[in-house]
């Protein structure tokens, strides 16, 4: 059976990018792959939207970037989580759990 894919809100995408980078430094394409992998390919992301997300996170000081050479010897920009980004991820995970819990509670109300 085909999986139904869910679209993402901007804040959720930012959180997923932080989560993907919490597992190690990656280039933008790698971030997309990692998100697909950890979500079991269930989330639909327009790949281009990753980049404004990455740039926004860098602007906030939650990720930092540097140019390096990729596995196929091409120049690529790699991103890694900063200490502030790691703290932000923890915060966002807590908020998300609270929100998801509250939404479930509301949906189950009779």
């Amino acid at each position, binding site marked *: 059976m085909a999986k139904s894919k869910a679209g993402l809100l901007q804040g959720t995408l930012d959180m997923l990018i932080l989560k993907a980078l919490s597992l190690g*430094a990656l280039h933008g394409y790698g971030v997309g792959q990692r998100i697909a992998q950890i979500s079991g390919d269930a989330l639909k992301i327009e790949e281009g939207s990753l980049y404004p997300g990455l740039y926004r996170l860098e602007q906030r000081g939650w990720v930092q970037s540097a140019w390096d050479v990729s596995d196929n010897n091409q120049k690529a920009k790699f991103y890694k989580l900063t200490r502030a980004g790691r703290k932000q991820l923890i915060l966002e995970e807590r908020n998300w759990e609270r929100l998801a819990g509250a939404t479930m509670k509301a949906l189950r109300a009779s």
Partner: protein
Amino acid sequence: MSRIRATINSIRARLHHDEIAREVETELRFHIEMRTRANIEDGMNPDEAQRAALQSFGDFNNVKSACCEIRRSLPFNTSLLRMGLNITIAVLAGVAALWTVNTPHHNLPSLLSQLGFVAVLTCLFVVARRKQKPHRQ
């Protein structure tokens, strides 16, 4: 944002306008190339693979201009300051090493303390260098 920082960012944006656009384009093209390769590996022919890559990417020009806009408003890059700090530490370590070698009438405790000083500076230099680059898995 302070007026000074806003002015610095505005000057940087004017000076580095083309450079930023080039960097963003290189990054986005890399993504499309990687996706195209993956599509080819999945059995598509090259034209079809590239078309699919562009489609899954979304509006290239919109993404590029959004990235350029955010990139231009990034706060002042501290990498040059960090590089300056690294060079200062390296020079201090070198001077300390020369001073240790050339100072007459050494005694063992002072020699050890001087060597310790040089070791600490070297460690600081190495740590500072390691922090500059993201470590890939």
